[in-house]
């Protein structure tokens, strides 16, 4: 056994280099949330609630599309939620929460004038520099439209910075379709090629019917297109098959993954996918990255 004295400063330096660790002089806890006031709410479906928020201290939230927040109500806990608005719309930010458990139900009981408690933005969003100047296709299934809406708004607001912009949105049935006002704008916009579909039509539905992959038949795409996929895991393999047939490289495909994230800062271990933490290494990954992670999909 080496004696303790044989541990050298060089070893410490090597450890610091391995981890990218530099001493952090912050004396703040990672876990104290900030107060966000609810300015507006909407209830697009029976289970989802759409919140427009503003930080109570008046500061702006600085984030990238695809990043997440830990959102909570004190006494109930917090859950990870993708930001649903673009940082180009600076003064407020938006989230959509689906009531599925105790915390999300508590959040969705809050009304205008109440507060939500947030930490973040957390994690890696979309690499906007890599998308700059490129043709972009967004494939959003169900509630997967919420985090991608941040990117859609961003591209719409800086339309001249991007190439062709195609948006596929699919939901189970017409009642599950989110953001009716946004969709009306996208439909009317010349800058966005918007296509939507439902798996099952209702009597009043006159639009496209079929799963989201059927939308690939409605337009042509070049192999250089950058693609963003966000939706239920079952959707990925079918969308990927279409992208493969178009010759789109997996380095150019981005996915936004969902996991249990208790801490959001790369410590608690719950969101780990092989050796990556979804909360700090993701939630946005290239498909090439997650292809190598056996536990990703």
């Amino acid at each position: 056994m080496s004696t303790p004295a044989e541990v050298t400063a060089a070893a410490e330096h090597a450890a610091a280099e391995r981890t990218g660790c530099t001493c952090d002089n912050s004396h703040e806890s990672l876990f104290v949330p900030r107060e966000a006031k609810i300015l507006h709410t909407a209830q697009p479906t029976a289970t989802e609630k759409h919140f427009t928020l503003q930080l109570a201290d008046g500061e702006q939230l600085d984030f990238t599309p695809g990043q997440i927040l830990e959102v909570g109500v004190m006494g109930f806990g917090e859950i990870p939620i993708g930001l649903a608005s673009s940082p180009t719309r600076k003064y407020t930010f938006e989230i959509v929460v689906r009531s599925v458990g105790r915390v999300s139900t508590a959040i969705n009981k809050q009304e205008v004038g109440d507060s939500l408690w947030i930490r973040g933005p957390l994690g890696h969003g979309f690499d906007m520099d890599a998308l700059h100047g490129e043709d972009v296709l967004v494939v959003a299934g169900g509630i997967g439209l919420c985090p991608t809406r941040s990117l859609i708004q961003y591209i719409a607001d800086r339309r001249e910075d991007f190439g062709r912009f195609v948006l596929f949105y699919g939901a189970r049935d017409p009642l599950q379709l989110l953001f009716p006002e946004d969709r009306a704008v996208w439909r009317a916009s010349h800058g966005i090629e918007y296509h939507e579909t439902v798996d099952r039509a209702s009597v009043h539905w006159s639009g496209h019917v079929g799963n989201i992959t059927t939308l690939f038949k409605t337009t042509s795409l070049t192999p250089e297109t950058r693609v963003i996929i966000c939706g239920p895991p079952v959707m990925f393999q079918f969308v990927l098959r279409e992208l493969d047939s178009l010759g789109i490289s997996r380095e150019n495909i981005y996915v936004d993954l969902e996991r249990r994230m208790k801490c959001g800062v790369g410590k608690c271990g719950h969101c780990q996918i092989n050796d990556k933490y979804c909360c700090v290494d993701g939630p946005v990954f290239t498909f090439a990255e997650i292809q190598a992670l056996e536990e990703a999909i």
Partner: protein
Amino acid sequence: MSAFFLKERDLVAFLNKLAKTTRVVAPVAKRGRFVFAEIGSAAEVRLDYDVTILPPKKVFFPPAQRIVTFDAESVSDCIDPVETVLFGVHFYDVKGIDMTDLLFRERNADRDYLAQREATTIVASSVQSVSPRAFWGSIGSSVKPKGHDAFLTKVDGGYVLEIVTDKGTALFAKAGFREATSEEIAAAKRANADRMTECAETLPYDSDAVAAKVRDAFSDEALWDELSNDCFSCGSCNTVCPTCYCFDVRDAWNLDQTSGTRTRYWDACLTREFAAITQPGGHSENFRAHHSARFRHRFMRKAAYLNDKLGGPACTGCGRCSAACTADIADPVRVITAIMERAS
């Protein structure tokens, strides 16, 4: 570096005086086994312990740690470090602390851990009695313990105390111990080196080779099923591990129903719900639904994923998981040996 020689009575006098003014946490006997606990006097301290039930990480990362308090108007942190001397830590547990130091410090520095860590002075001590399931003599030999401030080694007639850091110097500055001779320092070095050959269990494989082979075994589902067949998903192996640091976070109200606390609790990746998320209709999606996937994740983490960051496996060879596992399947020596000997 300076080194001192203490007779038993010097150590007893020092500890008795220290415990009157400072929180001292040291190994003590508990129902035939040993635990790290706050002491009132030197008489309680058992430096002849083999291994404690729980590792000393609980001093910085308690099983239940309040991280936030709130009332109707405000939310505040709970960082409130207490000056502490952690006394009598075996070198393998120092390694465990080094690893958690690094993991709590990297990327987002966790002040809820680090504040207490910085307020703590660690006095390591030599292993006098080897626990039956220990294998620290043969794992991670490239990883040296470094998080301690002083090291106490039992030798004939007393102890050799080596001071490693300024904190260690400050702790013993006024103790008045005599300097150790070069013969006494050499005897301490010999005692520690000799001890390394005394573990009953041995893992005779190089860490890098283990990391590569364990990683390659990821897709061998039959192997993981076989190794984890008797797993109860109880998480005991996680709970007693010096390098496990996963946690759950839960809120609780006070009786007034307007104030309360947010607390993090030790959690265990072997437990069934660890990677599950809630889905609509009361359903859940579990990203590691089968116990073999959870068992595999633990070994991937220990033997492969964290190696690059830590410079070796996230395992100290303390043998606590082997001893705590009801089904006796957690022993890293047996699991890693089975993987290494499997035909590829």
